[in-house]
């Protein structure tokens, strides 16, 4: 039968069959649950609404559903490809292909039926999401009104085509090879290539290509919405006009092409027989042979030997299978892609492929494949005999249950080992090709084959247990998937304890400086715990192992009871005992020796702190004027004994009778006394808040000495959050934690607005207004002090060096302890830290400033660059701003548990992760070591000389000016061309940052510590200012500003004063810039619609640009309105070598409502290849790519 009827017949039969089976509905429920979780909880994060973007914004819906459709390709392959391959798996093809059917009807009908079912299943996500948004506990303020349109739109535009196209591609593979295995292998490979290609295509230059190359339309979605503000995301759906429409058309064509190919190539024939069954010589009677009698044994020795042999056979079966080979190849590709991604740390500059990084690369790159291999092969192995019809033979053999069970487990462990080995080989190859030869094979062994292998081995046990227990292959897969989902979701639901999350263990970050450090103990114990668990699972699996033809659960239970032997009970008891003992020891460590707090408990504490003590916020409090500390670091024991004297002075004009002290609750307070004048009135040990009443009130200007002595020592190991600051090698502590603090600190309150709403806390102002005089009495660094006299005696073990701000006055050894005395000769901010480790020291000098780099011995690669940067920075800053106030500058490495660099007074701690392993051999890359060093040195001016009050905009003077300073030093060193690339990154980060804003965006001078404004926008603002005003003018303003406010006493400066300093050097014609750059949020949307050039008579070239200009002001929610302009904007061109031509400022006037295009002409000396407006992107443009165009001939 032919024609549409036939197609319909196949389609409806397929659909009816599919609908009556559980798989489709099971997946519908799973997807619905995921969708529900994504909307109604924080447990599932698939993209998501951030900040002002609603949780159910059409943009978010589109994002989530399209990401889910990526998961859906496995489902559509199972349903659609399975619809045809089934005829071969069940040997039913002979009944179908001898009927008068047409290939097209058959393939299309089955394909349509399967794909439709997959789309319906995936549609469960949309249903779950919609239901999720209606739940009463979802924050209504973060929702937009319900509408079915975005869901339908996404299903039609994104999900359905994705499934159809990907379904068609793998359908080809499956139907032409007639094996599902090839389709699944194709899916796995495709996923790898997709992920890897996304990493490469992430370049800025290939946006449209990237958008078209993504078959799921996610790239197109991102391209079309790249600069959408929250307002647009909440209302608009992506139209089909641009990249999205092109992408859909392209890929639907591709899908149709594959389908057509399948139809053309498919033959309604029996599969080709590869080798015929040999015809035995039928006529010759078999020879008469006597079968000898062999001896047999059945003891445990035999069983063991059977086990080993069977394990080998099963392992060989897995590893030589084509699927495994292909999976291995794809995991190699993925490791390579992962290496590429993880070694490009900052601004696209690679780091050296050190082994500890490569271990993480392999882990990450292989993770997906391990999970696939383990889940899939557990099913394959357990069901192997039954699938080939051999089970009745093997089940009747005289072998114990545990022989095949353990053999299959060993085979799985073997496969995991093989895959890890392949991963390691790949990583080593990457290292060698990258010219890095310090292979540290022992570290590979520890990292991959120690810890990792163990985790995978446990997962294998779990997978096999599921398969054996439920005795249903698909259900076994489903349980593994459920396990993955649950283990991801539990911590998000505030169930954080390791003891009930299977296969969990605390993270043991590896640092070259500190190795695995003290994390080894909890890592080890957790694995012992889970090993006993696994043992128990195996014993149970052995008892319920399905053997024989009747495998119903009730019967297996009965059989299990019969199978229990003395040995079984003993082993089970042992496992249980071990599990309980290890669990008990772990519990003792995490809950008794330490405090276990689920993640919402710390938020509860913050709420309590605010509710109980905010009343004291306005209380007058004396301030620290001097700190003299004794810090004793015991690295091996990880103990810190810290104490000393704070001298406080009453700077208010009233008496003070109460001193509020905050002590870290984990500290052991050995002594805390206030000159013998304080009695302890209130001691909240849980929150660490103490109130002392002074027997004699403290008069104005009087001083009070506070002596303290604390010990910090972590007992055992906590569930999470183990102290990473006091370690065996690489201690780095700050004064924000380990010393007593005075007064109520509002920065400890809960910040997130939706958290506050949930707990009924009042709205909180993020920061005081820029002109708040009260707030300006403090710096934004500290409420407890302005400038302090600082000195400290630091001790550590005799083989380490201890460092603190200040000049080394004395160093001595006593027994096995080494002492260092540091003293500052001038007051510093109340911001200091202490470090201790075994360092290698490099010393240099700049004039009379001692430069010292303290680094972990093998990390000396980039030290020369750091020293170079320090010198050049000191050159520039002392020449253009003010003298350097110290006689030393030290850079000190600390472990990679945190990855930042920080500028303390005359000492710059620098993380292992961000500079010491950067690979700077390719000089085309941005040298971020140079940049970060210059930035941190600049902070010695912009923070340690000039410091803003505790108000909005103060980080403008510290972070933004440090960015500017570093930019100037970099430009001198690397030239303007490289600056362009850097600034382009900054622009992107700013634009992305503002669309992810949780609260509100602010103009630069009112910035509330928002990184995307004070770092990224700051770079752009200051660079533009430099271009317009000239470097000398800007530096003059800065130097004058330092003279005015450097080292000042309260009230501290604010951004208004800074902007005035700039205004003083701004010529009238650029006065509007101050408003644009600092006082408002201003952007442009300038576009060159056409660029033409012709040679002119005198050998020069005339260029005509057709432009549309727009200038926009944004409010704090991101809503933009056009304003008029009367601005100077640069125009220019580039020659074939990309060198700038004819850059000049031109004046542009436009009314706010004007939108017509305008033309300008200008002349250049050489032949232009590209031309445009604001070609160096000095102005913040919503879309800078359309500022410059290739030049056409005129």
């Amino acid at each position, binding site marked *: *039968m032919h024609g549409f009827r036939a197609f319909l*017949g196949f389609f409806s039969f397929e659909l009816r069959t599919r609908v009556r089976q559980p798989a489709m509905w099971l997946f519908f429920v799973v997807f619905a649950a995921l969708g529900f979780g994504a909307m109604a909880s924080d447990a599932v994060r698939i993209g998501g609404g951030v900040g002002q973007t609603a949780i159910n914004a059409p943009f978010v819906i589109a994002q989530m559903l399209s990401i889910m459709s990526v998961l859906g390709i496995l489902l559509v392959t199972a349903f659609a490809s399975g619809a045809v391959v089934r005829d071969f798996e*069940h*040997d039913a093809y002979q009944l179908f*292909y001898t009927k*008068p059917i047409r290939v097209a009807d058959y393939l299309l009908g089955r394909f349509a039926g399967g794909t439709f079912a997959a789309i319906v299943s995936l549609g469960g996500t949309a249903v779950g999401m919609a239901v999720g948004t209606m739940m009463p506990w979802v924050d209504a303020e973060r929702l937009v009104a319900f509408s079915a349109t975005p869901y339908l739109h996404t299903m039609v535009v994104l999900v359905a085509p994705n499934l159809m196209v990907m379904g068609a591609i793998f359908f080809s593979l499956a139907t032409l090879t007639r094996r599902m295995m090839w389709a699944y292998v194709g899916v796995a490979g495709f996923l790898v290539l997709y992920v890897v290609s996304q990493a490469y295509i992430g370049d800025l230059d290939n946006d449209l290509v990237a958008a078209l190359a993504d078959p799921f339309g996610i790239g197109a979605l991102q391209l079309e919405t790249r600069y959408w503000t929250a307002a647009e995301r909440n209302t608009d759906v992506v139209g089909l006009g641009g990249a999205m429409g092109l992408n859909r058309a392209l890929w639907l064509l591709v899908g149709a092409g594959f389908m057509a190919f399948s139809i053309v190539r498919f033959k309604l024939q029996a599969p080709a027989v590869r080798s015929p069954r*040999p*015809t035995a010589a039928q006529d010759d009677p078999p020879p008469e042979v006597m079968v000898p009698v062999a001896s047999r044994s059945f003891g445990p020795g035999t069983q063991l030997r059977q086990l080993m042999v069977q394990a080998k056979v099963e392992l060989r079966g897995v590893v030589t299978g084509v699927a495994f080979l292909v999976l291995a190849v794809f995991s190699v590709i993925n490791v390579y892609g992962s290496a590429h991604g993880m070694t490009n740390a900052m601004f696209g500059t690679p780091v050296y492929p050190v082994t500890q990084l490569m271990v993480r690369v392999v882990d990450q790159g292989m993770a997906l494949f391990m999970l696939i291999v383990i889940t899939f092969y557990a099913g394959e192995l357990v069901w192997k005999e039954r699938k080939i019809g051999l089970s009745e033979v093997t089940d009747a053999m005289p072998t114990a249950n545990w022989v095949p069970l353990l053999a299959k487990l060993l085979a799985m462990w073997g496969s995991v080992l093989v895959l890890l080995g392949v991963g390691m080989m790949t990583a080593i190859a990457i290292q060698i090709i990258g010219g890095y030869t310090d292979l540290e094979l022992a570290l590979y062994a520890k990292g991959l084959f120690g810890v990792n292998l163990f985790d995978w081995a446990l997962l294998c046990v779990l997978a096999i247990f599921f398969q054996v227990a439920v005795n249903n292959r698909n259900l076994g897969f489903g349980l593994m998937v459920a396990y993955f989902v649950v283990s991801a979701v539990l911590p998000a639901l505030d169930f954080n304890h390791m003891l009930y999350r299977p296969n969990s263990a605390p993270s043991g970050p590896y640092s070259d400086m500190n190795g695995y450090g003290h994390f080894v103990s909890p890592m080890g114990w957790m694995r012992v715990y889970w090993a006993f668990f696994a043992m128990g699972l195996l014993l149970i699996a052995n008892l319920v192992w399905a053997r024989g033809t009747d495998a119903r659960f009730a019967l297996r239970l009965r059989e299990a009871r019969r199978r229990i032997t003395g040995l079984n009970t003993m082993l089970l008891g042992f496992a249980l005992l071990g599990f309980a003992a290890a669990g008990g020891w772990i519990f003792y460590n995490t809950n008794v020796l330490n405090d276990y707090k689920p993640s919402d408990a710390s938020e509860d504490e913050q709420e309590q702190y605010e509710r109980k003590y905010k009343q004291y916020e306005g209380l007058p409090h004396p301030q620290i004027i001097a700190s003299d500390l004794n810090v004793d670091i015991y690295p091996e024991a990880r103990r810190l004994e810290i104490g000393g004297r704070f001298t406080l002075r009453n700077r208010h004009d009233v008496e003070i009778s109460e001193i509020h002290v905050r002590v870290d609750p984990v500290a052991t307070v050995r002594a805390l006394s206030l000159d013998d004048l304080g009695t302890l009135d209130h001691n909240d040990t849980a929150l660490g808040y103490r109130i002392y009443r002074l027997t004699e009130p403290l008069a104005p200007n009087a001083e009070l000495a506070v002596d303290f002595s604390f010990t910090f020592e972590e007992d055992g190991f906590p569930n999470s959050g183990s102290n990473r600051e006091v370690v065996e090698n690489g201690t780095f502590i700050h004064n924000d934690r380990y010393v007593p603090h005075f007064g109520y600190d509002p920065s400890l309150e809960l910040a997130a607005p939706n958290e506050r709403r949930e707990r009924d806390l009042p709205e909180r102002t993020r920061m005081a207004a820029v002109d708040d005089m009260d707030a300006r009495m403090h710096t934004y660094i500290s409420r407890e002090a302005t400038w302090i006299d600082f000195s400290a005696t630091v001790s550590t073990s005799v083989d380490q060096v201890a460092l603190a701000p200040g000049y080394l006055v004395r160093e001595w050894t006593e027994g096995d302890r080494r002492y260092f005395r540091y003293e500052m000769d001038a007051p510093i901010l109340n911001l200091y830290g202490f470090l201790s480790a075994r360092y290698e020291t490099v010393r240099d000098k700049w004039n009379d400033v001692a430069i010292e780099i303290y680094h972990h011995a093998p990390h000396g690669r980039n030290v020369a660059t750091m020293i170079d940067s320090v010198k050049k920075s000191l050159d520039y800053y002392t020449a253009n701003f003010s003298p350097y106030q110290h006689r030393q500058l030290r850079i000190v490495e600390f472990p990679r548990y945190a990855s930042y660099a920080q500028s303390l007074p005359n000492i710059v701690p620098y993380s292992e992760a961000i500079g010491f392993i950067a690979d700077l051999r390719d000089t085309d890359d941005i040298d971020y070591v140079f940049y970060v060093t210059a930035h941190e040195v600049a902070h010695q001016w912009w923070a340690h000389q000039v410091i803003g009050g505790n108000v909005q905009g103060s980080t403008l003077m510290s972070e933004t000016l440090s960015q500017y300073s570093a930019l100037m030093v970099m430009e001198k060193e690397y030239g303007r061309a490289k600056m362009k690339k850097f600034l382009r990154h900054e622009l992107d980060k700013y634009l992305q940052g503002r669309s992810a804003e949780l609260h509100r965006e602010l103009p630069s001078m009112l910035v509330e510590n928002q990184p995307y404004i004070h770092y990224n926008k700051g770079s752009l603002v200051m660079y533009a200012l430099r271009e317009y005003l000239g470097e000398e003018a800007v530096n003059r303003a800065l130097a004058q500003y330092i003279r005015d406010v450097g080292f000042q006493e309260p009230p501290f400066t604010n951004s208004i004063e800074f902007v005035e300093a700039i205004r003083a050097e701004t010529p009238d014609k650029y006065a509007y810039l101050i408003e644009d750059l600092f006082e408002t949020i201003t952007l442009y949307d300038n576009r060159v619609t056409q660029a033409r050039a012709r040679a002119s008579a005198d050998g020069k070239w005339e260029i005509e640009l057709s432009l549309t200009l727009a200038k926009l002001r944004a409010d704090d929610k991101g809503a933009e309105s056009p304003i008029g302009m009367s601005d100077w904007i640069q125009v220019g061109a580039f020659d074939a070598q990309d060198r700038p031509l004819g850059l000049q400022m031109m004046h542009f006037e436009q009314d706010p409502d004007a939108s017509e295009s305008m033309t300008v002409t200008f002349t250049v000396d050489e032949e232009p290849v590209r031309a445009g407006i604001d070609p160096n992107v000095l102005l913040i443009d919503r879309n800078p790519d359309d500022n410059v165009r290739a030049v056409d001939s005129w």
Partner: protein
Amino acid sequence: MTVNKLVIRDLDKTYPGKVWALRGIDLDIPQGMFGLLGPNGAGKSSLMRTVATLQDPDHGTIRLEGDGDGIDVLREKDAVRRVLGYLPQGFGVYPHVDAVTLLDHFALLKGITQRGERKAVVEALLNRVNLWSHRRKKLGGYSGGMRQRFGIAQALLGHPKLIIVDEPTAGLDPQERSRFLNLLAEIGEQTVVVLSTHIVDDVADLCANMAIIAKGQVLQTGEPNDAIDALRGKTWRRTIDKAELAQFEEAHMVISTRLVAGRTVIHVFSDEVPDGFAPVDPDLEDVYFVTLKQAA
């Protein structure tokens, strides 16, 4: 259309490794039951699959002659499938579907588009093969015999003119086998029915015409009775000791060896009466073994 004859000419098929599966097959198969007899590996299934359009030969032609132009089986596969009923050897079914649903689907594929008609046909066939009481059971739960009956039902859909049954009675108990053969006998009136089997009795019981095929070649064709007559007077039997078998095999052309109540009884083929042997009426089995032995 009426189909009178299936004509196979010069059919060749080799598999990789240069093994001849079919070599120069020439057959004329008229209406009625035609038995294709041969040992395992003779090429019967290859031939059946080729006729059933599942496989292409390397060389040769197959035509379905009837009133009108006839059908070139190899080139007009779709036309063949419209009149074909095929019961393969060792087929599978969808385990999660019940019999009536799958049979209805097959009926649709065979061109019975009217729902009412289809229902009636399906009902009738299921009754005919005695599966009506099991029609709602999932096919995965069918026994071997039941599955075989289902296979017949689907083969008979649409009153086919060419029916191919490949090893249909293997695995059936005697009762089922008898029932099946009766069913086949009823059909063979206006249809070409090719029964491919290695069970001689099936052919002997049912088939008006037969061919013996071994090692890819047709060894003999004709009516069974004629073939049996040709052997009359040349078949002999004797009861012997097991140990003597080798001797007799050397001295005579031993057609068959079987055990009767524990004793070894041999049939031999000879123009003259051999010593110590008694004459025996030849049957088709003797024809079969003689043909095979002579070809070897």
